[in-house]
């Protein structure tokens, strides 16, 4: 066992570093550095997606046959670190990390041929239509219904909290296709809905930090071809659980947490340069959070490093999701603490990195809610402990 890079890993790291230095668009880097929301806007992320796609590096988490890179887990770890620490924007994960693996694992050949390449070119920008006003943590109680009619399904209902639905042209959903008898997890199907279909309406929701990231999506008599149903009718719940494990252990979040710490480091530096003293309590708390991130980096590497691209991380994903979300909050809170009293100011325009910290702190509270709330993860983790 050791953490030393071997010859080829060192060469790989240098190659990644050089590529980023030559290709990371300045507006993407700047946009990421001022980020307050959960994900950067497509205007920030997509130019970087294009550079990565051109190099064949956009989908390291996919098997090679579908456009993956064939990297080992350790190489993915190095890549994610280099990207995040260079200030590259987060790659938007909904197509790449969420629906992509469902399509290449359970989809028909025609679905793979159509949808996978379009994720890699950003011709399709995906959003996730799982949650509903009446179905949050208890997702299986969802009521959006898809009724067969000729070659189509006719879909009615409402989804809520769709991240970037206002930018997306595609939405993967869970819909009820069964009779309603039996357990509520039965009779759910996984359906892909083009958002330009008549009867789809997207309404904005403004977040606690003042950003427009999420939306409510209304579906009224929306006709979706039956060929857009993934896998078997009524098996949607299994595919959703599979997808959620990727969402929760999506990969090397420590690199992104580190990038946020780096931003805080720069803010601290500029405040100290301006003669502002950092309170010892704030320094201590930042040190403790940095320790937590160091440790989390090792935890992720230990769990994800040995996995092949596209391999299901299993139930441990709940521990990674829980800690990722808590650390996201702890780092954001440490950043807010670094501002001292200035943390009470809500900047009207985000022009500097320190302007971004209050909004980042506010929005970070969502981290323990989306993707399965903290309390739900704790339940899953406990049940796993009882199984052992």
């Amino acid at each position, binding site marked *: 066992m050791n953490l030393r890079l071997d010859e080829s890993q060192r060469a790989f790291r240098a190659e990644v570093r050089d590529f980023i230095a030559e290709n990371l668009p300045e507006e993407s880097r700047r946009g990421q550095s001022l980020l307050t929301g959960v994900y950067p806007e497509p205007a920030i992320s997509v130019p970087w997606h294009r550079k990565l796609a051109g190099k064949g590096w956009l989908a390291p988490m996919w098997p090679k046959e579908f456009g993956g890179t064939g990297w080992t887990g350790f190489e993915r770890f190095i890549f994610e670190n280099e990207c995040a620490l260079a200030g590259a924007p987060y790659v938007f994960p909904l197509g790449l990390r969420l629906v992509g693996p469902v399509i290449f694992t359970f989809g028909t050949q025609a679905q793979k041929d159509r949808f996978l390449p379009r994720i890699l070119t950003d011709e399709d920008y995906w959003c996730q239509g799982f949650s509903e006003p009446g179905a949050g943590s208890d997702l299986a109680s969802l009521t959006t219904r898809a009724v067969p009619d000729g070659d189509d399904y006719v879909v009615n209902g409402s989804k809520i909290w769709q991240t970037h639905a206002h930018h997306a042209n595609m939405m993967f959903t869970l819909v009820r296709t069964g009779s309603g008898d039996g357990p509520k997890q039965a009779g759910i199907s996984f359906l892909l809905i083009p958002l330009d279909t008549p009867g789809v309406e997207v309404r904005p929701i403004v977040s606690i930090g003042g950003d427009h990231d999420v939306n409510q999506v209304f579906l009224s008599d929306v006709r979706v071809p039956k060929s857009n149903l993934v896998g078997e009718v009524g098996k949607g719940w299994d595919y959703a659980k599979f997808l959620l494990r990727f969402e929760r252990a999506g990969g090397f979040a420590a690199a992104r947490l580190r990038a946020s710490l780096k931003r805080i480091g720069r803010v601290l530096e500029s405040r100290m340069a301006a003669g502002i003293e950092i309170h010892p309590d704030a320094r201590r708390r930042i040190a403790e959070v940095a*320790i*937590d991130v160091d440790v989390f980096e090792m935890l992720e590497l230990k769990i994800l490093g040995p996995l092949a691209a596209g391999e299901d991380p299993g139930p441990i994903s709940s521990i990674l999701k829980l800690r990722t979300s808590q650390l996201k909050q702890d780092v954001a809170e440490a950043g807010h603490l670094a501002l001292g009293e200035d943390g009470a100011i809500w900047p009207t325009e985000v022009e500097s990195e320190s302007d971004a910290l209050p909004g980042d702190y506010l929005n970070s509270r969502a981290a323990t809610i989306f993707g399965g709330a903290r309390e739900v993860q704790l339940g899953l983790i406990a049940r796993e402990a009882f199984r052992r």
Partner: protein
Amino acid sequence: MNLEYTEDQVLFRDGAERFLSAEYGAGARARSTGAEDGVDPANRSAFAELGLFALTVPERLGGLGFGPLELAMVLECCGRHRVVEPIAETAIAARALATAFDAPAAQRWLPPILSGEIHATVALLSNADIAEAGDADIVSGAVPLTRGAPGAGLVVLLADTGEGERRAFAVTPGTEGVSVSAKRLLDESRGAMLTLERARIPSENGSLAADSVDQLLDELTLASCWKALGAMRAASGQTARYVQEREQFGRPLARFQAVEHMIAAQSVACEEAEAAALLAALSMDLGPSSRIRAVSAAKNKIGRASDVVAKNAVQAHGGMGVCDELPIAGYFRDLAAFRAMDGSARHLDRYERDVLGSGCFRESAILGTDAP
């Protein structure tokens, strides 16, 4: 990068685990806790025979030639079985003799340690006052609470003068000017504070080539972290089993969500503690700044994580958690001693100064710092 244990590592660890399961029951442990110095000679011989004290001594000096990770793995087993004897302290004293002293000193002191005739320990003497006097050094200063010092056949003093100078001294019992104030610790092991008042230490028992002083202290911290990890894993495993067996209100405690969340908190704490322990063990050979960063992170993180495990273990056991009937109370005391000792505050300070202060917290803990 490679995260697989080798076959040799697993074999050695499993050997130690089998020995402890079969031979180290309550009776064996009680022989040591009942002994005046906290170490039963027969237990000590058995540990020596198993090779625990020789583990990290180079082969040319009669050791097994393993490194800090292998010692750590064995310490995890010791933590699980609540081993009360100063295993890590003795093993690292032996390693100190092998790495920080010249060959004659090492050859003089290693045989009785490796054979189990004596136990030994390693102690930190900060702000030491050292003066040369012919064929001896005259040393003064105070040594904080050090496990294994009572009855030790040898104490390896790792001294720092406060001005960056590092020295190591091998101190034998009865050395004039050394007073020992022995204490019983929460985990029922023995420790002592030492006071050196113009103690006269013969030059042949001193070492100038003590670059490895900081490294040795970190190895000791690393070992204590892994021992704590063993106790944490055992305590949370037992808690998860207990709440599935014990019924109240007509169902197992495990079915109450408040209890479920205690169990989940323990699982998370154990996973994080293991990662912290591993990061520290694997950073030992990456260069000083990586080592300092990872060891101080581990001590602080495992301190916090052990608190979560220990308190929830007691709480979930109800009254059974606060009496000596079950090992749970014992694990709680072991972990409380771990948290209190070995400079818990010092490590957060060191991290703040060396990692936050230098700005290297902005780099990956694994790929950054002085990682090759």
